[in-house]
């Protein structure tokens, strides 16, 4: 057991936060959200230079073999700055699908990702999904030379910016069968693919992807279809865990911003923080943050563990981080008073990011129910220590 950062990890954290504080402050983010593509591209290149884009890849794939903890450290820093570029869609989702299921030749795309040349996304969700990962209505039909894909994917994070798309499609079976799902690696400019791009609440970007008679080569299929559902499930968990690490970074920033505001803003002759009610509210925010931070770390360390521990940890994290984040963001806005609801200060944007967080990759309610199922099915026992996980 080891739940502390190593010296190298501490350095990684410091440098990542320092870089983004200097190069990606709130005004830069506002410019990017307002459409400054140049600033966004510049940031992306810097992320590549810093080694963030290839962090989890093997050296052979052009990466740095970073651990889950390393990745969570970078995500935390990205969340502190509310970076809008599609880091998670690219590195945690799209590239991970290739890492998990790709052949050597398919994995060649990873070096381009690491270099910052290629962005990716993961197109799995459909309008009928409603939280059920096995629902895939999009069809992939085998044609002489390859496959033909037909169907529509919704709320694809980074879908409008991705150069390569990993899309799930049904090769066989019922609409919600866990078997018979294929993952396909498809370039964005392929014939028949229509991308309707839009913005989410927090200014990040998503898209609806409509595949109309899209023909792809045979070697676009990632891995064996019998294992695809497991891959999708793992990517779902990695996405949820990554979002937790990201937003926890934001929460820490939000507490610092709020503390700064109430320390300087004077009312009835004294700084707001001198009012005990405000002081204790901040303490409650810190408690909520500590809870979120601790359980997000649980989800991080679980990612390389058994499937059941991973699911338990990720769901616990998504529930608790979600609740904590909502509490902290609401209180941050409240303690900022009127200024908290203007677009001048960043606090409103953090609330928007929290709102998005709670709706993506499983709502707190959906994750709570998954946790309940694991609990009542005996996947874990409430009387065992989390540290016993290895031999369960």
């Amino acid at each position: 057991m080891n739940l502390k950062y190593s010296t190298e990890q501490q350095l990684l954290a410091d440098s990542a936060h320092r870089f983004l504080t200097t190069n990606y402050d709130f005004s830069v983010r506002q410019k990017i959200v307002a459409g400054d593509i140049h600033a966004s591209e510049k940031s992306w290149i810097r992320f590549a230079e810093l080694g963030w884009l290839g962090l989890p890849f093997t050296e052979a794939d052009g990466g740095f073999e970073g651990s889950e903890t390393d990745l969570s450290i970078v995500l935390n820093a990205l969340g502190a700055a509310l970076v809008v570029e599609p880091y998670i869609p690219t590195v945690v989702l799209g590239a991970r699908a290739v890492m998990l299921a790709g052949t050597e030749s398919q994995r060649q795309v990873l070096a381009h990702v690491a270099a910052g040349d290629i962005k990716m996304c993961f197109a799995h969700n459909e309008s009928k999904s409603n939280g059920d990962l096995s629902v895939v209505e999009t069809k992939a039909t085998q044609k002489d030379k390859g496959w033909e894909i037909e169907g529509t994917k919704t709320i694809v994070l980074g879908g409008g910016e991705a150069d390569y798309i990993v899309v799930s499609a049904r090769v066989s079976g019922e609409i919600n069968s866990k078997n018979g799902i294929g993952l396909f690696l498809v370039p964005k400019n392929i014939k028949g693919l229509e991308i309707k791009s839009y913005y989410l609440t927090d200014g990040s970007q998503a898209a609806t992807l409509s595949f109309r008679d899209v023909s792809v080569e045979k070697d676009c299929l990632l891995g064996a279809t019998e294992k695809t559902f497991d891959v999708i499930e793992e990517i779902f968990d990695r996405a949820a865990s990554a979002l937790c690490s990201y937003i926890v970074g934001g929460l820490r920033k939000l507490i610092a911003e709020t503390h700064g505001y109430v320390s300087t803003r004077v009312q009835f002759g004294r700084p707001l923080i001198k009012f005990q009610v405000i002081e204790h509210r901040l303490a409650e925010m810190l408690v909520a943050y500590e809870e979120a931070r601790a359980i997000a770390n649980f989800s991080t360390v679980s990612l390389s563990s058994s499937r059941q521990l991973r699911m338990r940890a990720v769901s616990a994290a998504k529930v608790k981080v979600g609740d904590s984040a909502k509490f902290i963001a609401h209180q941050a806005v409240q303690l900022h008073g009127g200024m908290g609801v203007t677009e001048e200060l960043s606090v409103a944007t953090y609330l928007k990011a929290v709102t998005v967080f709670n709706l993506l990759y499983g709502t707190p309610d959906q994750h709570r129910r998954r946790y309940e199922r694991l609990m009542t099915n005996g996947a874990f026992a409430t009387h065992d220590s989390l540290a016993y996980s290895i031999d369960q």
Partner: protein
Amino acid sequence: MNIELSPSELEFRDNVRSFLATSLPEELRNAAIVNISALFEYDISHAWHEILYAHGLAAPSWPEEYGGKGWTAIQEYIWRIETWRASAPVISQLGMRLVAPILLQFGTEDQKREFLPRLLSGEHYWCQGFSEPGAGSDLASLKCAAVLEEDCYVVNGTKLWQTHAHYSNWMILLVRTKDTGKPQDGITCLIVSMESAGIAVQPIKTIAGDHEVNQVFLDDVRVPVSQRIGQDGDGWMIAKHLLAVERASPGNATARLRAQLTILVENIHKNKAARDDPFIIQRLANHSIDTDVVEMLELETLQNDPHQDDGGVVASTIKLRASIVEQAIHETAVMVLGDEALEWESKRPLHAAGRSLDELKDLAVIPRYLNSRVRTIFGGSTEVQLGIIAKWLSHHQGQARL
């Protein structure tokens, strides 16, 4: 005790209902349904104002001699419930419910004659210049200064959070005319034309992308003494009076909440997963029960003697609870729609975004949730209300109402 309306009150309600059914244009109704900001957008509220004015209903609670109908508190209550129920816009409350009572109470005959009819007709549209950067809850610390030079006050300073100042032609303004003594004593109330030289209105974009509030800069703005309300130094008293008037808005909280609940119920009905979700239904039931409580508290106030001020403890309780309940309703609305709620439409007003009504309803959900956060901040934050309530309790030696 009994809770039922009398037959004549029920008849009044039915008349209001038929008036609304025949007089509220569908396009106004559809725009009002997807209104996301704290107030109704000017374009729809003003259009509805003109219709009401044509029917003599622009200010039914005013005395009849000034063009009102002299309605009872219960009638006003019914009117509010019914207009929200019909998804009608609510016309600007600032002029009708705040400026008018102040003019009636403190204004000169000339001021009444000049301003009341134009307020009624909608020709004048008002904003309120009270808060400042650094003087929100702590109004007594305001700094915007006015110096009397012959027959004019010369005003210099900055005001913050002026709702709809960019649509207004008049502002009711609190200024500091004396720097010595108790801060409360040096405040004076003026009315100012927004076309005066030296006034600049700077928009403030709020969390859901709306331009509803502003910062107003006053640079050597000359205001004739004839536009002072009351005497020099009466400003604090007038602000207190206004606060008391603001408290007595029978049905305001309940009607708003019931309207939000209705939208929520509709969204739940459309969505099978939500309909079958015991946790969503539980939240809905809690919201409904919380609304029942707010309504009971409001119904009790209808019989209150308006001259017997309780220090605002009941109004504070209602304000505090209604704000929190409304926020919770919007949180549920987000949950019901789920990730489908995430698409952001930045066009404002939203109803003019050129989308279908069904699309607009979905696109309104998150902006409304975000905007609802101001409920516990503006109009006296929850913390301020708790302070008022605590003071009342200590003043009554810990004895709550029976």
